C-alpha cells in the first residue's frame, strides 16, 4: 500500500518525465520541419547546420542550397510555428482557467476571430485611414490592431458571462457564437469592398498559414510572445486556486481581480500577436491543454509549460502535413487543425467527466 507522500512523489516524477518526453518530441518535430519539404534534406545535415548556427567557431562545409533552405526559408517558418503554437495553447489553458470552463478556446469563444477581424479591418480600411490622417503608416499597426481586437472580444465575453454566482458557461459559449457571427459579418463586408490583392490577403487571415514567415517579422514577435508566455506560465499556482472558484481563490490569499486582469490582458496579447502573424489557426488552444491534462493531470504548474511545448510541436506537425499533402502548393494550416480539432472537440463533449465537466 502506497502512502500519500510516496504517491505524491511518484506523481511529481511522472509529470516531470512526461514534460521531458514532450520536449524530445518537440525537438524531433523541429528537425522534421526543417528537413522535410520539396527539397529533402537529411536529418544529420539539418543537425549539423543547426550546430553551426549555435557554434560559429566551427566551419563545416554545407551544400549552399540546403543551408539557405534551412536558414532562410524553413528556419523562420518553424520558429514562427513554435511561438504561435505555444502562444495559442497557453492562452487556451489560461482562458479555460479564467472562465473556469474546459471548453473555452480562443477560436471557439471568438477571441481569434476578434483579432483577425481587427487585423483585416486594418488592412482594408484602417491603414489607409491612418496614412491620410498622419501621413505615414505605424510600424506595428497590424499586430497592435489584432491585439486590441482580441482584448475587446475577451473583455466583452467576460462582461456578459460573469455573474454574481460565477461564470455562466452557457452564456459564455452563446456570446462566443455571437462574437464569431459578428466578426464573420464584418469580414464579409470587407471582402465585399476589397480589391483582388486584398482579397487574397483575407483568405490568409481566415484560414491561417505559416507561409509568410520572414526573420524581420518573426524575431520581434518571438520576443513579444516569449514575454507574454513567461508572465502567463508562472501563474500556475494562482490558476490552481482559481479552479476552486473566485471566492475560494480570494480566501487562499490571491488577488483575484489582478489575476483576472493579467489573464485577460496577456492572453489577448498572445492570441493577438499569434493571429497577426499567421491568421486564425483554430482548436490549438482547446485540444492541446486537454491532451496535456490527460497526460499529466490538471495541476496548472505542469499544464502551462506542457501546453507550450505540445502546442509548439503540434503546429510543426500540422504545418508539415499542410506542406506535403497537396504538393507543390500547400494547404492553409488552419484547415488541418480544424479538421483534426473539431472531431476532438466532439469527443471531449462525450467524455465529459474525463475533463472535469459534470456529466
Amino acid at each position, binding site marked *: 500500500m502506497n502512502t500519500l507522500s510516496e504517491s505524491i512523489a511518484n506523481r511529481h516524477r511522472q509529470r516531470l518525465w512526461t514534460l521531458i518526453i514532450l520536449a524530445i518530441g518537440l525537438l524531433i518535430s523541429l528537425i522534421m520541419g526543417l528537413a522535410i519539404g520539396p527539397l529533402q534534406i537529411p536529418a544529420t545535415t539539418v543537425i549539423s547546420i543547426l550546430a553551426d548556427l549555435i557554434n560559429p567557431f566551427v566551419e563545416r562545409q554545407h551544400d549552399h542550397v540546403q543551408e539557405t533552405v534551412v536558414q532562410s526559408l524553413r528556419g523562420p517558418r518553424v520558429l514562427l510555428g513554435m511561438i504561435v503554437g505555444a502562444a495559442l495553447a497557453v492562452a487556451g489553458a489560461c482562458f479555460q482557467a479564467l472562465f473556469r470552463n474546459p471548453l473555452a478556446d480562443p477560436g471557439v469563444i471568438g477571441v481569434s476571430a476578434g483579432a483577425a477581424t481587427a487585423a483585416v479591418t486594418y488592412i482594408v480600411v484602417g491603414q489607409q485611414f491612418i496614412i491620410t490622417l498622419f501621413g505615414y503608416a505605424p510600424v506595428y499597426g497590424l499586430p497592435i490592431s489584432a491585439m486590441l481586437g482580441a482584448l475587446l472580444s475577451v473583455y466583452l465575453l467576460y462582461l456578459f458571462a460573469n455573474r454574481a454566482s460565477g461564470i455562466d458557461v452557457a452564456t459564455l459559449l452563446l456570446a462566443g457564437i455571437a462574437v464569431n457571427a459578428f466578426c464573420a459579418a464584418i469580414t464579409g463586408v470587407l471582402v465585399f469592398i476589397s480589391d483582388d490583392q486584398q482579397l487574397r490577403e483575407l483568405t490568409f487571415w481566415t484560414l491561417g498559414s505559416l507561409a509568410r514567415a520572414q526573420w524581420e517579422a518573426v524575431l520581434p514577435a518571438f520576443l513579444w510572445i516569449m514575454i507574454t508566455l513567461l508572465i502567463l506560465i508562472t501563474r500556475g499556482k494562482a490558476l490552481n486556486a482559481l479552479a476552486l472558484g473566485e471566492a475560494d481563490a480570494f480566501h487562499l490569499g490571491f488577488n483575484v481581480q489582478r489575476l483576472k486582469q493579467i489573464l485577460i490582458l496577456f492572453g489577448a496579447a498572445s492570441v493577438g500577436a499569434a493571429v497577426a502573424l499567421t491568421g486564425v489557426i483554430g482548436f490549438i488552444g482547446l485540444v492541446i491543454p486537454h491532451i496535456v491534462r490527460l497526460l499529466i493531470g490538471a495541476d496548472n504548474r505542469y499544464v502551462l509549460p506542457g501546453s507550450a511545448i505540445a502546442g509548439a510541436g503540434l503546429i510543426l506537425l500540422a504545418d508539415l502535413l499542410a506542406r506535403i499533402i497537396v504538393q507543390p502548393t500547400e494547404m492553409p494550416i488552419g484547415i488541418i487543425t480544424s479538421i483534426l480539432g473539431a472531431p476532438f472537440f466532439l469527443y471531449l463533449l462525450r467524455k465529459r*467527466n474525463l475533463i*472535469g465537466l*459534470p456529466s
Partner: protein
Amino acid sequence: MIETNNVSYQVGAAKLLTDVSVEISVGEVCAILGPNGAGKSTLIRALSGEMNPSQGSVSINKQEMKYWNQKELAMHRAVVTQFNQVGFPFTVAEIVSMGLLPYKLSNTKSNSTRIIEDVMQRLDVLHLAERLYGTLSGGEQQRVAVARALVQVAGADAEKARYLLLDEPTASLDLKHQHDLLKMLKSLSKENYAIVIIVHDINLALQYADSGILLEQGCVKKSGPISEVLTCENINNVFGVNGELIELSSGGYSFHVYH
C-alpha cells in the same frame, strides 16, 4: 476574535444585512441559524473579508479587515463555501494540497504531506486521495472541501488564533459524517480555533455549538450562548415552527417539532 460593528450590506434597494454587531471568540463553535434568505451566507462573506460592508466594519484579532494583508489573513482564516464545483480533472489529493497555497513551500515541505495526510484521515477522505474530484458524490466533495480549508489553517503557526468559517458544510453529509464533522470541529475549537458554521439542523446546533447567531431578514434576532438563542419562543418567532425542547438523559436538549 472576530467581531462586526454595526455591519450593514445593501445591494440596490435590498438590505441583506442590517446593523449586525456580533463577536465570536477563539475556543468556541458558533452556529449561524435562520430561515432561507435571512443573510447567513452574506454574514459569512462579511466575516471572511470577501465582501466589504456598506456600513460598519469587521475586524479579526482586533485588526480591521481592510488593514489585513491578504496572504497573511489566508494563513489565519479559511472558508468553506457552498459551491464546490471544480471544472478540471484534479485529484482529491491535489485539491486538499491547495490548502498550502498561501505558504512558501520551503517552510512547510518537511511536514506538509504529514499535515495533509492527517487532515484527510480526520475527514475520512484519505482513501479517495487518487480519485478525480469531479467523480465524487456531493457529500464526499463537501468533506474534501472542508479538508482543504483545514489544511490551510493547520499549516499555520499553532500559537496564533485561527478561524474556520463554514457555509452549510453538513448539507450533503450522511448522519454519521455530520456528527463526525461537528465532533471534530468541536475538538478543534479547543486548539486555539474559532469555528463559525451555518447549519439548518437545530439539533446539531444544540448538541455541538457553544454560541449562536439567529438571523431574520438580515437582522440579528438573538445572539449569545446557544441555550439562550435556541429557545422554543425564538424558534417559533423566526422559523414559524412550534415544538418543544426535550431534556435528554445523556445531557443537553433536543428540539422536537409538533405536527
